[in-house]
């Protein structure tokens, strides 16, 4: 017997995903709907009778009059018009019992389809606490569909729903589908007849929002939250990252010791293990970042942050919703771009994706540290500020300014000038549920490892090939890397990069640096024939380039790293998240142009001044 197909639909913030987690546990498959980057979540449940159900968690929607790609998917699947999705056997419409005035309207819209459906009144615990009394039997009768109570965040809170699904498929009579019928009037009538609500909002929301949305205290609170996230991402992750680096070095060394010298060893140790280590080292940062984002999202604070910043972001062509993706990009642009899925307007989403690579991601830090350490004197200004620190700060500011400037230019270049809607719901505050956060975290970690890991691994192997073939001849006078494809590419590139002051060593290092920015540091070390990795090598390298490069070259390379799309994984994620090579070309094109221009100006002006 084939499994029955059931879908969960409902307004955003109705607790639908928590209910889905309660029903299916961790047995979930996360993918995309064919052709679009809308997340598709599917799970299975086995009812007490032994029947198996396939459950689809559809994106939240306010209306079938779709205003975003998410809502279109929900509409098409519910109506049975989605080409890639088989018809549903039953629809579970989820509504927040504390917000029936809004949610029942969508229930009525789904009800008009005349398909077998059941209404799950979710968050019944919160409703009872607020003294909301619902006459379930009467509501069920009036709607002509079964109604069950659920508490998604409580163990066993979905049992009534499973029992209902396990029974016979309810017969649902067709209703007049007069599109002009006033659904709001029907909702009011239903509420008047079946629900008693003592007060309009939860007192706790009022109290928290008075502070959280305050023009001064609200912004101060947001600054503290941001500071905590940054602190956590960069300091909590550090020991784990060191551990991962150590682990992969040990693995490489031990494997290198037992394997015979040769190509296979080189590929395995220098290519695959080193490459994987370079990716996984970012996992702790990404997990901590996503932990914060998930907790903020679950608690209901994220839309408040968007509320506080919307005006500022909107004036440069973004939206308040761009804030979190851009903040994430400071750790790494890849999770940042993945987080843009919460932006409904496709134009706002694309702008955010295209400017995300400009934020100062953590992979730029090793490059910045090396160059600043080698070229900027360690002197203090006015006895308080450290010159090196100020240069680093200036590079971060340059990143922020360029995000705003590029977004502003894109806003003015865009042909579609129609109004961008905000229309953002600020849901009730909730205590985040540990299981929901854990499931979300595992999901994101898997997406990062599977997709991005695969891409980086492929690129690392390719770059290893370019760096090692063809090998140096027996009578070699130059470092082996000079004879390789990468070396030849580097020398060829020098003609292009000479006007911005890059020597051939830098040009070669830029090639492997495409896999991940920080790889450029170890590549430079390789090119300068320094063996061994780690901090010692970085310091020696600093001394060498400090003696050999001009200040103009060093500053030019710093400017290059502010803008250049020196990270193929980011471009690959842009391709995946926008489904378009054109957007990849736009991103790569404008970033290269900006990088070249910035480096050219920096090099020429510094050369002229010094």
């Amino acid at each position, binding site marked *: 017997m084939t499994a029955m197909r059931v879908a969960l639909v409902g307004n955003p913030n109705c607790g639908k995903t928590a209910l889905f987690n309660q029903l299916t546990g961790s047995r979930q498959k996360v993918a995309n709907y064919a052709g679009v980057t809308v997340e598709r979540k599917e799970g299975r449940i086995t009812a007490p009778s032994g029947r198996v159900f396939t459950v689809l968690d559809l994106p939240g929607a306010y209306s079938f009059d779709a205003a975003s790609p998410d809502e279109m998917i929900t509409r098409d699947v519910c109506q049975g018009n989605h080409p890639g999705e088989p018809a549903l056997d039953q629809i579970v419409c989820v509504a927040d019992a504390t917000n029936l005035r809004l949610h029942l*309207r969508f229930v009525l819209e789904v009800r008009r389809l005349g398909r077998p459906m059941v209404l799950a009144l979710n968050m019944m615990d919160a409703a009872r606490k607020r003294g909301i009394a619902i006459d379930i039997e009467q509501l069920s009768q009036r709607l002509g569909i079964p109604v069950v109570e659920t508490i998604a965040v409580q163990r066993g809170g979905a049992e009534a729903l499973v029992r209902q699904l396990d029974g016979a498929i309810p017969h649902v009579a067709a209703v007049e589908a007069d599109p002009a019928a*006033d659904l709001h009037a029907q909702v009011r009538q239903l509420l008047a007849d079946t629900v008693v609500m003592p007060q309009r909002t939860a007192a706790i929301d009022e109290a928290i929002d008075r502070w959280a949305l305050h023009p001064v205290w609200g912004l101060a609170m947001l600054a503290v939250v941001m500071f905590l996230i940054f602190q956590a991402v960069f300091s909590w992750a550090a020991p784990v990252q060191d551990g991962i680096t150590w682990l992969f070095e040990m693995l490489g060394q031990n494997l290198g010791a037992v394997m015979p010298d040769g190509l296979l060893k080189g590929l395995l140790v220098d290519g695959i293990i080193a490459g994987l280590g370079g990716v996984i080292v970012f996992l702790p940062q990404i997990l901590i970042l996503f932990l914060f984002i998930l907790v903020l999202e679950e608690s209901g604070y994220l839309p408040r942050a*968007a509320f506080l910043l919307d*005006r500022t972001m909107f004036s440069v062509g973004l939206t308040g919703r761009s804030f979190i993706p851009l903040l994430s990009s400071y750790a790494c642009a890849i999770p940042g771009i993945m987080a843009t899925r919460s932006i409904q307007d496709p134009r706002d989403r694309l702008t955010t994706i295209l400017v995300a690579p400009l934020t100062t991601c953590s992979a730029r830090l090793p490059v910045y540290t090396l160059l600043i350490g080698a070229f900027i004197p360690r002197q203090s200004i006015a006895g308080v500020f450290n010159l090196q620190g100020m240069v680093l700060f200036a590079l971060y500011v340059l990143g922020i300014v360029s995000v705003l400037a590029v977004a502003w230019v894109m806003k003015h270049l865009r042909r579609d000038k129609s*109004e961008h*809607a905000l*229309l953002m*719901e600020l849901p009730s505050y909730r205590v985040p549920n540990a299981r929901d956060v854990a499931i979300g975290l595992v999901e994101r970690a898997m997406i990062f490892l599977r997709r991005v890991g695969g891409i980086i691994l492929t690129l690392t192997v390719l770059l290893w090939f370019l760096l090692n073939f063809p090998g140096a001849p027996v009578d070699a006078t130059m470092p082996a890397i000079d004879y390789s494809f990468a070396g030849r590419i580097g020398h060829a590139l020098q003609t292009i990069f000479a006007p911005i002051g890059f020597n051939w060593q830098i040009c070669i290092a830029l090639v492997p640096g495409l896999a991940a920015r920080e790889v450029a540091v170890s590549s430079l070390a390789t090119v300068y024939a320094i063996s061994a990795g780690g901090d010692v090598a970085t310091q020696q390298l600093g001394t060498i380039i400090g003696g050999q490069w001009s200040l103009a070259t060093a500053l030019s390379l710093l400017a290059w790293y502010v803008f250049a799309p020196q990270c193929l994984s980011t471009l690959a994620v842009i391709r995946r998240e926008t489904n378009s090579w054109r957007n990849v070309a736009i991103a790569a094109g404008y970033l290269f142009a900006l990088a070249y221009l910035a480096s050219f100006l920096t090099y020429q002006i510094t050369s002229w001044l010094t």
Partner: protein
Amino acid sequence: MPSDQYNENYSYLTGGLAVRLSELAKGAAAVVEDVENTQLGDGIAKRLRDLGFVKGEPVRIVAFGPLGAEPVLVQVGYTRFALRRSEAARIRVVVEA
């Protein structure tokens, strides 16, 4: 500010003044009169109606954003929505006199 003209047009019927939601002060309560389309097939106006901004619905201004009093946080029914000023200006409301 509500003008005398509005007063003449509406006050005898509704006992209040019809203004735009974007003109209300913080904490002000009103009742929705209608949502205007700014163009043919105005998707934003349609969405506002779907979200519950329909005639007779009580609304209240809860908060403003820190810059230029934008966005506007509006309580409608049991839900709070953040609206930009241009969105809130589509909603005409009657302030109880």
